[in-house]
Structures are given as C-alpha cells and as structure tokens.
C-alpha cells in the first residue's frame, strides 16, 4: 500500500518542483474535409474541429482535479494544411482564409494554440506548399493561435535548399509583419529536419498522415524535479548521476502515461504517445540550464555543456522508455533560449553562443529554438543557419529544428520580450560573414550515405 513518504514526495514534485503535464494535444485528421470549394473546405474544417474537440478542455480540467496535477496546455494539431488546402487554394491569400478558420475553431473550443499550418517540402515543393509558405507572414500576423511548421529536410530525402532559401526570406517577412511585437510571429514557426508525425509540442505539432483519424498525445515536463533530485547527490560520480536522472524520468513519464490514458478514456479517442521531452518555462526552478549547472557547470554554454546535455537527454529517454510502452514525438531535452531563465542568463552574460547551441543540438531534442538575432540579419544568413541545423539532423538521423527570430529594430545588447511561456531573449550575435552565394545555388543536397559512419 502507498505510504505517507511516497505521497509527500509526489506532491512535493507537483507543488515545489513544478512537475506538470505540459500539454494534452488532440490530433485531428482533416483529410476527410478536403473539397475543391474553398468555402466548403473552410466549413468542413471548422465543423470537424469544433465537434471533435468540444470536450477537450472539460476533460483536461477533470483530470487536473482528480489527480491535483496542473495540465498547462490543451491543444490541437491537424493534418498539414498544405495537403488539405491543395485542391481548393489557388493563391497564398486562399490559404490565409484557412488560417483564420483554424483560429476561430481554436477559440471556439478554448485551446490556446492549434498546430498544423504546415508543409512538408523535404524533397520537392508543390505549388500548394509554396503558396502556404508564402502566406505565412499574413497568416501568422493576422491570427492569434496558429502555429506553423515546415519540414525542409530528412535523412531519406536530403535537404531541399530551394525551400531553405525561401524560408530565410519568409522568416524575415514574418518578422517585419509583426515588428510591433518584437517580431513575435517568428516564434510560432519552426522549420524541421526529420519532423515527427506525432509531436504534441508547439510550435511544431502537426497530425501526420501516418496517424489515425484522431489521437491523444501527451507531453510531460519536469526539469525542476530532475534538478531537485540532482541537488541531493551533489558530489556523486557519473554512474550515480545517470541512475538518479533515469529513476526520476521514470516517475515523470508514468504520470504522463496515466494522464494520457485517462484523457483517452474520457474523450473516447485513442491514446497515441507520451513525449518524453523535458520542456522548460521561464520561471525559476523549471529550467534545463539549471540542471546543467547542477551537474557542475558554472553556466550553460561552458565547456562540458554538450556532454552534460548528452547525459541528460539519454538518461531521460532510458527512464522514460521503461515507464511507457508508447513513446514518441520529439522525446528529448528542449533548449529554447527565451523560455528558460538559465539559458537567458547564460546568453546575456556571453556564456552561451549560437555556435555552442548548434553543438548542443547534436545531442538533444530539436535545435536552435527561440533564438533572437539582430533584425539586420540577412535572409541568406537565416537560411545558412537553417541549412547547418538541417545538415546535423540529416546526417545524424535525428530531428532538428530552427525557430529563429530576427527581431526588427533590435541588435546585440537589446532584449526581445515575447511574454508568457515564450519568455524573453537577449539578441544573440550572428557570425557576420556571408553565405549569399552558397544559398543562391538552389537545388537539393542529396541524402547522406548510411554506411561508413565516422
């Protein structure tokens, strides 16, 4: 039988160490909404989302009460809209109407974000995919709740450099379109290599075509719990360190599994996956950088950071895999700069640079995430940064991503303020040398060889 110490430990994690369920994300396939009439398509999308997700918020609130565990976000992901709108949308403006429909549907059911305003041009780009990408400045500046992602590369297809070049220009335009809010629009767009079909975390969530009609995916979070466990073993060796992270990750993931199964039961929607990612928030005690510091680094970004992050990422997975039979999504430690107060401090004092972040992305989840750079950064430099990150993902057979914000009117020394869970970010220095001619080449970088691993 459960004893008092076990109960107190679990509740301490929730109350003092910010253990929470970061998101319950309801994936909805919109494939059956497709029509060649734009009006009919918009009606179908609105009806399907509002009907399928009508009980999402109430089910989430019931679970919060039953287990006294905060569920921070309830969200929706849909089939990539470039596929859904391909038949009806002839122009970028047509796609914007779908963005507005998604925004209305999200507002109606009470979710704060809806992901899947997405395109997957990792090898070639259809006209519809190009139109959707071109619609992003308008779509992201005229809606509140839309999140967008574009898969530019994969280990199987290589890197679509035409799409990489286009995204550099589009990201600059989104920054311009939302310049009155520190170019906030860019924080709702992520570009991927090897994007997973079942990621519950925004901004990159979409409901892949390999998924069923509807699915419940859950993302748990507990950086504070891991840090607290590590504080109790300050001088222990690496074996003990790894074991401690693994055991803690097990407990955190079991919570995710419980919530996912309960949400699935209440909504009568199949349970998909638990995402093991450790996701920070800007509040103190909910930070990945604090874990790295607790391992013995003065600041995130110091020599040893990549190794420390590799340990954290691997042990979280090892503990999580034991705890849930259905693990998926991104499943790793997130290192968004603006959303983690330890990372913000490290970037502000010069300990953390974009180049070090890039190295860190080789061993952890996602990539250059919520990184603010000077507004004067050129489109081709943004594309060059994206291409580097795509290459890391492609060669290492992992998911990598870039969510970069060239903040209009700000430069190194300034800080961009995004507010809420998006936090704030010191503008980080970008290497000033040009890659114009490299990006201007166009075409595709072929898929890498899968043998002779060195």
């Amino acid at each position: 039988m459960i004893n008092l110490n076990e109960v107190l430990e679990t509740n301490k994690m929730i109350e003092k160490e910010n253990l929470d369920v970061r998101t319950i994300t309801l994936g909805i396939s919109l494939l059956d909404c497709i029509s060649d009439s734009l009006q009919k398509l918009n009606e179908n999308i609105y009806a399907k989302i509002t009907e399928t997700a009508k009980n999402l918020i109430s089910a989430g609130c019931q679970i919060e009460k039953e287990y006294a565990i905060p569920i921070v976000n309830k969200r929706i992901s849909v089939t990539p809209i470039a596929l859904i709108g391909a038949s009806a949308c002839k122009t970028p403006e047509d796609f914007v109407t779908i963005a507005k429909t998604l925004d209305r549907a999200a507002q109606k059911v009470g979710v704060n974000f809806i992901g899947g305003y997405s395109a997957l041009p990792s090898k070639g780009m259809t006209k519809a995919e190009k139109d959707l990408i071109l619609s992003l400045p308008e779509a992201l500046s005229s809606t509140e709740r839309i999140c967008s992602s574009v898969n530019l590369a994969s280990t199987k297809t290589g890197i679509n450099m035409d799409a990489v070049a286009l995204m550099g220009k589009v990201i600059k335009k989104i920054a311009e379109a939302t310049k009155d809010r520190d170019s906030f629009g860019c924080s709702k767009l992520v570009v991927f290599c090897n994007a997973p079909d079942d990621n519950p975390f925004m901004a990159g969530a979409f409901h892949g075509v390999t998924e069923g009609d509807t699915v419940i995916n859950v993302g748990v979070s507990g950086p504070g719990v891991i840090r607290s466990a590590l504080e109790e073993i300050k001088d222990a060796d690496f074996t003990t360190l790894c074991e401690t992270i693994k055991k803690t990750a097990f407990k955190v993931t079991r919570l995710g599994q419980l919530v996912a199964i309960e949400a699935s039961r209440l909504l009568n929607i199949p349970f998909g996956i638990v995402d093991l990612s450790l996701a920070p928030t800007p509040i103190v005690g909910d930070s990945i950088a604090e874990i790295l510091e607790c391992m013995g680094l003065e600041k995130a970004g110091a020599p040893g950071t990549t190794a420390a992050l590799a340990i954290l990422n691997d042990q979280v997975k090892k503990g999580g895999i034991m705890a849930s039979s259905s693990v998926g999504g991104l499943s790793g430690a997130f290192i968004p700069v603006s959303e983690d107060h330890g990372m913000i401090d490290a970037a502000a004092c010069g300990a953390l640079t974009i180049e070090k972040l890039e190295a860190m992305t080789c061993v952890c989840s996602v990539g250059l995430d919520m990184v603010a750079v000077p507004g004067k950064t050129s489109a081709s430099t943004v594309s060059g940064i994206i291409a580097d990150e795509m290459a890391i993902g492609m060669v290492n057979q992992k998911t990598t991503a870039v969510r970069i914000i060239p903040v209009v009117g700000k430069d190194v020394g300034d800080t961009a303020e995004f507010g809420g869970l998006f936090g704030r970010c010191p503008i980080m220095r970008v290497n000033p040398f040009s890659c114009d001619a490299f990006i201007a080449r166009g075409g595709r970088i072929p898929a890498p060889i899968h043998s002779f691993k060195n």
Partner: protein
Amino acid sequence: MKKSIITVVGKDQIGIIAKVCSYLSESRINILDISQTIVGGYFNMMMIVDLNESQKNFLQISDGLEALGKGIGCIIKIQMEDIFNEMQRL
C-alpha cells in the same frame, strides 16, 4: 473500488483530524488507513479513503475539503490513488 488519497498539511493544532473525519463521516466516505507525522511543527496526514458510498461526486468532495482546509488553516487535497501507484510502483 477506486481508492483516493487525502492529504492534510498545515500548522499543528487541536482538532484537525476530528474536523476532517467529521466531514468524511457526513459525506459517507469510508477511511481505510490513516498515517500522520509532524515535521518541524507542521502536521502531515494522509488518509486512504473509499468514496463508493458517498452521495457526493469527486469534484464536490474535492471542493468541500478545500473549503474545510481554508477554515482550519490547512491545505487539504484529495487525489485518485492511481497517480501514486503509477509514479511510485513498477
């Protein structure tokens, strides 16, 4: 039978257990196990209870206990037992 766990945390004083137990008795909630300890002057109690006979639903009981806690200066929570079983047992 779905079991739930009630936890009571607060500054130690006379009558905490009595007040919580009378609320449970009025709500026809059966107590299966009680353990308590005092750490640094703070009262920590855990009860394992069975809600099957209760005329109230889980949310009503949860709100009732929270209000009772406010009245006696304690934090009282009720949680379904699964969360502890899942996190603390293989």
